[in-house]
């Protein structure tokens, strides 16, 4: 490093995060590498022995892998929305979080797209997609649209980064210096260069929006263009796009909170960002609830035989616990968490008397443990040893009631910590959106239009993921986080030139900037 931090400005603190590496970073990277290695081990096993090591069989050809694929393509919409839509509409508050969001887009695609190849039984035949693919098939459309989207989002991540790379080029030597020198394309901030840059950014910002929308629409068409109950629906395109933006916003909120805490970016990422994005998340949450209702209500109301079987397994059958938990915890609870606390009157939290301080939560916890024990109706639990019909109501309702009471108890805390609340809601949303994709993929495959042959063993017609699939899934998430962490180590995670007061791409050579008058003298 050939320069020293002379002044304690936010910008210098940001640049410091590139080189000052704590123990936590190494521990995190080591842990992620370990998980990733375990995932690779699992995949090698699958490669050697074939898909028989997964829970997928004749009827269930898509499992966790396609769930992950849809999920990762979904969160890749973070960059598009935050960066492109907010850039085009001139929302200036988005500047500090633009790059974070764009990086999510590229990295999520890099992790998500290979999930399809992992789902293949014969990945050695990957070239057949091109050699024998039919251009009429939505599967091939998906290959094309994801490739196009990946290329576009790479460009869109890269172009606004050029002025920052030039700034870094002038401050670093060694491998960083060489890397930044190559990538900065000889940027000097001349008027001609600035014009070209602005033009490139403007074109990409506009172009990437329809591409992003089309990508998730095409992903939905892979489902919707089949005549399978539960999939064959015109709402699937917009439903998937809304779901993607929804989980994308949740992802960027989580990333913002983590970077803010880990890299001390409080100067850049302010409560205002969490409030604005939290409101967007709330709106998308409500739209997604509306779409979910529309999708299921149409099938439920017409009640055609095959459709009814899928819905029965989701509403009351095998997937009911998963579905209702997702709806309550993943969709309604975040909406309440985001909407209710801001509506509460500003009032200091009254200090509870000592007895109440201990008693109330302790009681709540006790009730909850008992109720949760009752609710999990599996052999070996409390529920199995009791006659649940004596409860009169479904244990789910009791759980819901207990949860509501608990929520009311912690409501003042939510009011007092708006950022934590927003991030908490985002985590719930992301988990729920992963599960929702699972609920889109699996129940339909388990209830095909043509009846399952009675000679098919029961376990072939019902999907239960194996350790191989869970390991690869864990590996995929580890890979995503690892790539993101490393990206933040090599490139500034907050756009420097866009967050400067004048918002101009570095006009003069960085050595001559007003930031370092001491250096010049």
């Amino acid at each position, binding site marked *: 490093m050939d320069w020293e931090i002379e002044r304690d400005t936010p910008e210098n603190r940001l640049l410091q995060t590139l080189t000052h590496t704590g123990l936590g970073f190494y521990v995190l990277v080591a842990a992620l590498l370990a998980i990733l290695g375990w995932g690779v081990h699992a995949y090698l096993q699958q490669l050697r022995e074939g898909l028989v090591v997964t829970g997928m069989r004749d009827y269930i050809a898509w499992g966790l892998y396609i769930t992950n694929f849809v999920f990762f393509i979904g969160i890749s919409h973070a960059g598009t929305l935050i960066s492109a839509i907010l850039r085009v509409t001139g929302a200036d508050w988005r500047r500090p979080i633009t790059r974070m969001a764009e990086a999510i887009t590229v990295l999520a695609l890099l992790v998500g797209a290979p999930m399809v190849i992992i789902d293949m039984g014969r990945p*050695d035949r990957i070239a057949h997609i091109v050699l024998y693919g039919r251009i009429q098939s939505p599967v091939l459309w998906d290959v094309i649209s994801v490739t196009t989207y990946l290329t576009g989002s790479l460009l869109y991540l890269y172009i606004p980064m050029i002025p920052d790379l030039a700034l870094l080029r002038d401050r670093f030597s060694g491998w960083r210096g060489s890397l930044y020198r190559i990538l900065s394309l000889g940027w000097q901030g001349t008027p001609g260069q600035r014009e*070209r840059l602005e033009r490139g950014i403007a074109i*990409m910002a506009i172009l990437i929006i329809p591409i992003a929308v089309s990508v998730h629409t095409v992903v939905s068409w892979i489902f919707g263009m089949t005549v399978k109950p539960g999939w064959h629906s015109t709402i699937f395109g917009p439903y998937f796009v809304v779901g993607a933006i929804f989980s994308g916003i949740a992802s960027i909120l989580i990333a913002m909170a983590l970077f803010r805490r880990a890299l001390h970016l409080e100067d850049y990422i302010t409560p205002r960002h969490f409030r604005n994005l939290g409101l967007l998340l709330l709106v998308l949450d409500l739209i997604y609830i509306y779409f979910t209702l529309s999708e299921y209500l149409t099938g439920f109301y017409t009640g055609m035989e095959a459709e009814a079987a899928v819905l029965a397994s989701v509403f009351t059958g095998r997937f009911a616990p998963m579905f209702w938990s997702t709806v309550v915890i993943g969709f309604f609870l975040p909406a309440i968490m985001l909407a209710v606390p801001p509506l509460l009157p500003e009032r200091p939290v009254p200090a509870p008397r000592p007895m109440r301080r201990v008693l109330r939560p302790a009681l709540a916890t006790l009730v909850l443990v008992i109720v949760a024990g009752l609710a999990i109706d599996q052999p070996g639990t409390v529920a199995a040893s009791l006659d649940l019909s004596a409860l009169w109501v479904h244990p789910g309702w009791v759980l819901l009631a207990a949860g509501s009471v608990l929520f009311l108890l912690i409501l003042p805390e939510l009011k007092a910590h708006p950022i934590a609340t927003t991030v908490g809601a985002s985590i719930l949303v992301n988990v729920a959106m992963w599960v929702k994709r699972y609920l889109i993929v699996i129940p339909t495959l388990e209830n095909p239009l043509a009846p399952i042959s009675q000679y098919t063993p029961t376990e072939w017609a019902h999907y239960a993921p194996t350790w191989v699939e869970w390991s690869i899934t864990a590996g995929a998430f580890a890979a995503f986080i690892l790539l993101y962490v490393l990206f933040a180590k090599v490139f500034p995670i907050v756009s420097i030139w866009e967050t400067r007061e004048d918002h101009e791409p570095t006009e003069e050579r960085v050595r001559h900037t007003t930031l370092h008058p001491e250096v010049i003298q």
Partner: protein
Amino acid sequence: MKLRLTLLVSFLMFLSGFGSLAMTSMAASPAVDENEAAALYANYCAGCHGAQREGGYGPALTDLEALADAELFEIIAQGKSGMPALGEKLNDEQIQALVGFIKGEVGGQLQGSEGEKAVPPVVSAKSDADASVIFGEQCTGCHGAEGQGGYGPALTDLGGRTDAELLGIIARGADSMPGFEGRLGEAEIEALVSFIRKFSAATSEEGKTEEIAQAVTAAAPARLSLDLSPGAGGVVTARVSLQSESGEPIADTPLVLYRQTVMGGNLALAEATTDSRGEAIFQLAAMKGQTLALEAVYAGSDQWRPASAQGKVKLPGSAVLPPVVSGLTSPTPPPAFVAVLVVVIGGVWATYSYVVYQLVCIAVQREK
């Protein structure tokens, strides 16, 4: 601080309680629905109790009001007098579904056309593998999995009956054994006859094999050969024979058949024990046009050294259908469709190129 922590912990526990509830949806062994219950009845019960529960070899199941569900569950799981126990073949959910089905609580009364659904369709192939499947479904309930007998007589000694006699018994029934004419085609019954003959062959030659085994010296080299023949209907027959150096068959020895996967893995497909001729026969389902690389492995014993044999077989492909000439599924898509696709995707990539050109301009414009 303490309050916050306790509240947070309680709330997280609440979420995890809900979460583990959700996870039960991912567990295996799901509840059994009514169609499945009907199929289970057809497979395991109809042979003796009749397709309409009217009774046959076993008693009619039409008047079971007095019997408690738990008792019925017990009888199905544990068996009763001559009825075989199904507890090992079926899981609790399946037995519970059968209880509901038999009592008419699930899937309504088995009357008229409703009941017809429960009868398995006629199977239309007559290879050995199919015969063993049919035997497993239709016969083992009374005659035992190895033909050792149970409710019905043992099949290890067929009393010198001719094939024609056996055909007649299976088709029309005998004593209290139900006839299978309506349920199985002629070809299947023929396949069954030759299948059940194996039981008697295996028993009668058992004595000889023991003598042979005793005559062999310890840890002698063993020879394993693998003979693969593609059969009709996508079935590959793998005939493995294990012999001593001098060509004597090695009987009653476990063999494992592996499939060598494309990526160099070894997938254990099945295990079998050699018969008196030192042979074990595997029937493998395969796709038309598929190439199977197989390896038979004998693990070795005190008497015999380990041995293995490899083989490869390619199944004949099926005739290619004439291509569809028009519409969205034809190999040559409609030109208008392709034109739209090219314009849209080409337009996007052309725009990318323009943006990349801007970057090139930036690089070129630098001051020297």
